């Protein structure tokens, strides 16, 4: 695959989401405020530098400003207020990124040195390519098999690190069909600069068609269910084992009591942590009996089991 065939060869990457457009406006806001300061400062510097040069004995140097605290207070306050405005602007836009809409298309990403592995809920797999529908929020659930990577799509103006041992999320909503760069933005070793991919944004019908044409070995949920049985999870969690373990049907999205008296919303990260570090957060009323699957299960397998557990129902149920 020729990653160098540049999808966007213009000087400025086009903004392909509503968020990207807002970020561009923020950029112009920052640029305008900076230019105001720069122009004023450079004007004063130049004017003073020329007018008050030693050779210009005729310059008026009487009545130098003595009391400085009024000026100091004024420019300190002005700076502070301007900074506060920029902070609020940037922060509000940033908070938009933290809550993906409930109807988002979920796609799993597993990063490793030096490739991006993609799996759709239907079980379709891709490497270094990510097909997405447009005009629909897409939520990526990302984890790494080795070091820290970072998922970066310039056209969407978003980036998020992908860490080993936990799952991170990013979401966006592309407005137009097209092909965009996917970069790894966190230095990850020898071929960091070759850890590239393409985002292929398609209209909904074409995306569905594309999904339908991919070979799969069952949906992620089905594959996860097979693993759930093969790894022996169902022996206890199946509901009819000898060991008493929580039933996982309809668990996702619920608020569950923990043995230490606190509560925890069951999300992606809790499910993953419960497989890898089962004794960290025990559901109330159960014995800490479950063994850790750390090192016994690959990143790809965890992702599938989590997808299966989510498919068992609960809030924001996925097919």
């Amino acid at each position, binding site marked *: 695959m020729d990653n160098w065939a540049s999808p966007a060869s213009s000087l400025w990457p086009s903004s392909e989401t509503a968020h990207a457009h807002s970020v561009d406006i923020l950029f112009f806001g920052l640029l305008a405020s900076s230019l105001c300061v720069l122009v004023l*400062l450079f004007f004063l510097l130049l004017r003073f530098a020329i007018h008050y040069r030693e050779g210009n004995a005729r310059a*008026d140097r009487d009545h130098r400003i003595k009391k400085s605290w009024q000026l100091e207070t004024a420019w300190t306050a002005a700076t502070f207020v301007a900074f506060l405005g*920029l902070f609020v602007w*940037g922060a509000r836009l940033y908070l938009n990124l933290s809550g993906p809409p409930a109807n988002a298309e979920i796609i799993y990403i597993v990063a490793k040195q030096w490739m991006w592995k993609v799996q759709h809920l239907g079980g379709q797999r891709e490497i270094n390519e990510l097909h997405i529908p447009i005009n629909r929020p897409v939520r990526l659930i990302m984890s790494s098999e080795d070091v820290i990577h970072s998922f970066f799509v310039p056209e969407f103006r978003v980036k998020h690190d992908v860490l080993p041992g936990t799952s991170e999320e990013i979401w966006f909503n592309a407005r137009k069909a097209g092909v965009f760069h996917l970069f790894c933005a966190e230095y990850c070793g020898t071929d960091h600069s*070759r850890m590239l991919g393409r985002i292929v944004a398609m209209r909904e019908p074409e995306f569905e068609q594309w999904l339908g044409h991919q070979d799969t070995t069952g949906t992620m949920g089905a594959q996860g269910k097979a693993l759930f049985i093969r790894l022996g999870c169902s022996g206890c969690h199946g509901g009819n084992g000898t060991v008493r373990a929580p039933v996982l049907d309809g668990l996702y999205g619920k608020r569950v009591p923990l043995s230490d008296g606190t509560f925890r919303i069951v999300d992606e990260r809790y499910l993953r942590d419960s497989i890898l570090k089962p004794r960290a957060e025990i559901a109330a009323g159960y014995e800490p009996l479950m063994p850790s699957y750390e090192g016994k299960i690959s990143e790809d397998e965890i992702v599938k089991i989590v997808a299966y557990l989510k498919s068992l129902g609960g809030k924001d149920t996925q097919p």
Partner: protein
Amino acid sequence: MSAPRNYLTEDNRLRSWFFTTDHKRVAVLYFASITLFFFIGGAAATLIRLELINPQGHLVTSDVYNRLFTLHGVIMVWFFLIPSIPNTIGNFIVPLMIGARDLAFPRLNLASWYLFMAGGLTTLYAMFAGGVDTGWTFYTPFSTMYSNGYVVLAVTGVFIAGFSSILTGLNFIVTIHRLRVPGLTWYRLPLFLWSLYATSVILVLATPVLAMTLLLVALDRAFGIGIFDPARGGDPLLFQHLFWFYSHPAVYIMILPGMGVVSELIAVYSRKEVFGYKFVAWSAIAIAGVGFFVWGHHMFVSGQSPFAGLVFSFMSFIVAVPSAIKVFNWTATMHKGWIRYDAPMLYALGFIGLFTMGGLTGLFLACLAYDVYVTDTYFVVAHFHYIMVGGMVTAYFGGLHYWWPKITGRLYPEYWARAAAILIFFGFNMTFFPQFILGIEGMPRRYHVYPPEFQVWHVLSSAGASILAVAYALPLFYLGWSLFFGARAGANPWQATGLEWQTTSPPPKHNFEGTPIVKRKPYDFTVKGKARAQNA
């Protein structure tokens, strides 16, 4: 020549240099060492820029490229920028400025140079024996589990050099507290000392955290203790918190001394006292204090909680306020002054322009939603080079030229120095301004090969770098020349007011004949063209 005996001519056997406890000689040892490191780091930068002319990178392999930018970063940060002004100019000038015979702990001062060299040579050995490919940030778990370089040896070197930083900071703090001559109250201290004091506080408080962090990296890598390994219950993000808890304040270790130098230069060459002296002085302390609470702005996309992101973004805007105050006050200092354009003043003006550019682009990065886009791109690279090189290195050269007559007893050639200052300014902008554009275009940093649409800006940047390389080499020649052939400098060639100008150039071994007494504020240029010395 019947020049009076001075610290240089006192005793010139080799052992008198290597076992000296004279702060001025230790400063000279540091000058020689960091110049060596500067040109080693610079050579790596030159290779990087040559490599990036071609998007496919035909000069070196990716592994070599990754080692080059690691070498450049590690050497420049820990073995040039951090010691640059404090350990050279600071070592030389601090006791002179306060009228003391030496630093409070002269032997500790020498020990800190030995530690610095031990650390530097260890790291250099690691860099050349097999190299390190982690980047200067040593991010885990890459550095602890996946890197195939000499990580343990390199971090050991930085660990050792850290103790040199701590000892220097400690020495300055005690010296400034205890050894001021009678009459030299805190508000009569030159602003360079306020800056160095603030710097020293950071050195003492932050460096131990770096030492601890690097020790953990070495232990994790060598013995697999797993503190940063998620598979064993460790947390890779913990490293970033610890690392930036040191490394963000370290940015202020690097820039505060530069701000101090510039405060001196603007005052002397405008022949006016610094406008808003107390505001400039306390802004240094404010930067040092608030600077400890902004480390998370390096981690907006790392997976820390969005609320942490909000707090760190806010604090980062706050820490920019005192920097802005300084810039405004320097500008106001020039108002109604008698401004001269000797080379140090050209450097000072260059500093104000470049530092302001670096500071304003820092706001882009403090601003959450925009940072998410440009973090880990060339925008960040350009931003911190504007602060570190455009700011700090420019101030270092300004200070070096300003105090050169005091240190060597010789004047530097003025026209060459001005030419170099101007060439550095243009070469610098040509090198690093295109990198802002690369960042805005979305080009990630630490890329050995890159998509061809970015090439034009890389070529421009590399062209600028070749100018910059020549410009930085120039002072080596004309300053070297002036050591032997420069005109003899009097005690006070700039008619400056600081105590360091009241003794001969170069100063005698014990700095002053008798103890000076200070009766007035610094920067009292009340008579046009002539300075009224602080003790007059």
